[in-house]
């Protein structure tokens, strides 16, 4: 009987596993189960730095990701931008991924125009924030930015000359930034910003990265990286801190996209653990059976 079960498990069609995975992710989405997180030090460090910087500090927001990594990085980009907006820093959006431009645009639309576009002190384009758009040339573009922004891009994303924008007065290169905040999905990304700009020019940099990339970036922390926000967990941590500090309006569920993905994450992780354990159980059982009937 157990032997038959073992045979069945050995021959299990992997489509059943696919189905189990789909269920583990789908059920929390449909049932609206979210998950909170306790912040970890590398995330807290970035949060504190943005808090500490005086109002109106220049922050370079480098959004180097595409739709394939938007699931992890877009909630992060939203949270970073919201925090900078609350602290009223001057934001310079830029990307070195051709597919990153729509990401910048939807971040601007979703945060700056929606949350800070009105009221008594609205964020004004060209004064409080600017979209420098896409820089071609991969890592070389970063190197160019760190020597002269205008050489890398004479105009902003709308085609306006950089010299016509008030925000650009006194800004010649990345050196004039108080902080680089990078949402990075791979090459070129966080590693290249550290290598080509932050380390040679001594500019503080914090990176929000995908889970895949985090092991590559962890060795740079804390010497070359000020903060490191990892994957969806990091995004949830940041949202949690933002919600704790500014409950109005950031404790609201609709402003916490990462929180809603947390529940699915938790269940899928449980499934993964179960599968690894079950798989190894089968492996051991097979070995045991082989010793019985060699």
């Amino acid at each position, binding site marked *: 009987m157990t032997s038959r079960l073992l045979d069945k498990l050995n021959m299990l069609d992997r*489509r059943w596993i*696919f189905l189990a*995975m*789909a269920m583990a*992710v*789908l059920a929390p*989405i*449909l049932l*609206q189960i979210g998950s909170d997180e306790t912040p970890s030090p590398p995330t807290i460090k970035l949060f504190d730095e943005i808090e500490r910087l005086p109002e109106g500090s220049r922050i370079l927001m480098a959004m180097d990701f595409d739709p*394939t*990594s*938007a*699931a*992890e990085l877009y909630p992060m980009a939203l949270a970073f931008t919201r925090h900078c907006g609350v602290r009223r820093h001057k934001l310079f959006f830029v990307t070195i991924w*051709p*597919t990153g*431009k729509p990401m910048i645009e939807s971040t601007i639309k979703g945060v700056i125009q929606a949350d800070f576009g009105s009221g008594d002190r609205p964020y004004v384009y060209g004064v409080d924030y600017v979209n420098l*758009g*896409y*820089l*071609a040339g991969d*890592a*070389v573009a970063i*190197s160019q930015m760190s020597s002269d922004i205008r050489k890398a*891009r*004479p*105009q902003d994303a*709308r*085609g*306006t*000359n950089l*010299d*016509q924008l008030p925000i650009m007065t006194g800004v010649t290169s990345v050196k004039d930034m108080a902080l680089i905040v990078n949402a990075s999905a791979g090459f070129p990304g966080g590693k290249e910003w*550290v*290598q*080509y700009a932050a*380390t*040679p020019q001594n500019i503080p940099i914090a990176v929000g990265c*995908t*889970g*895949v990339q*985090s*092991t590559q970036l962890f*060795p*740079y922390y804390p*010497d*070359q990286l000020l903060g490191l926000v*990892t*994957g*969806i*967990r990091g995004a949830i941590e940041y949202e949690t801190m933002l919600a704790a500090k500014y409950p109005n309006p950031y404790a609201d*569920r*609709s402003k916490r996209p990462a929180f*809603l*993905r947390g529940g*699915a*994450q938790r269940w*899928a*992780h449980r499934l*993964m653990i179960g599968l690894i354990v079950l798989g190894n159980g089968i492996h051991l059982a097979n070995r045991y059976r082989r010793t019985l009937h060699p």
Partner: protein
Amino acid sequence: MNRETRFWTVMFLCGSLFLAYQSFGTNRGVGQQFVVRVDATTGKIIPPTTDAAAPAVKTVIYEPAAKDDPEAIWSFSRTAGIWIAALLTLCIFSYLYRDNVCYKLAESIIVGVSAGYWIVTNYWEVLIAKVLVKLAPDVARYAFLPDTPADAKADYLYVVPVVLGCMVFCRLIPKISWMGRWPLAFVVGTTAGLKLILFLNADFVRQVRSTVLPLVVFSASASGGSELDLIQSIKNIVIVISVLSCLTYFYFSVEHKGLVGRISRLGIWVLMISFGASFALTVMGRITLLTMRLQFLFDDWLGFVRI
């Protein structure tokens, strides 16, 4: 008709019936998108009007809106877009069952679209915004970028990279294909030079420096003196030993026997632990992505989830 075909026929029928009911039988519909008309130059919303005499606005852009917004109008292109995106998503997921025509169709679409996407982006961002502006600022101002300064002078030095770049196409003509190597050499040479310096700086020097750690750490205690920080000391010792043993593993010109062999074995264990952690973190990313796609299907398209 075999059993499998029958099963899938029934599944498709049920799915279509369900979609039909959801679209026409419910109030919300499936993937319905609404927009408001906005004057791009002023940023004001233009109310929908049937009055033909109303002044025509040249610069109308559309922004997403809620269905119950009084100024909202139904958007055909966006509704169709959501449907197409959802169906393509299902086509790709169908690969999990088996390689099939639907998957192949989605795949061949993406091959064309992604190649085209890169070309268009680079056309506008580099060829126009960088090259044309430098070579013919007047043309650029009149045709594409009105904000190009009127006093900008043409910089003919930029002819060189353009010519060099175009030499790439010599590769397509067998007789002069050797000329196609010049631009390649330029690109490879630039990256080689840059990489040499920057990798040595950030990945060699800096990483070795970060590994220079005291193996015994003292921290200020509450009483004013200093006491041994055991956890930090252990961490430092583990880091230093691990780095050294991994470096020994990657040392190729010594036979791994005796002491060296044992140290390098330790090195491979450290690498395995680091790969295990990296696997778990990768899993996290892939699952998030799946969550996003399912949210799209069940929230944006079918509308099952409402916060």
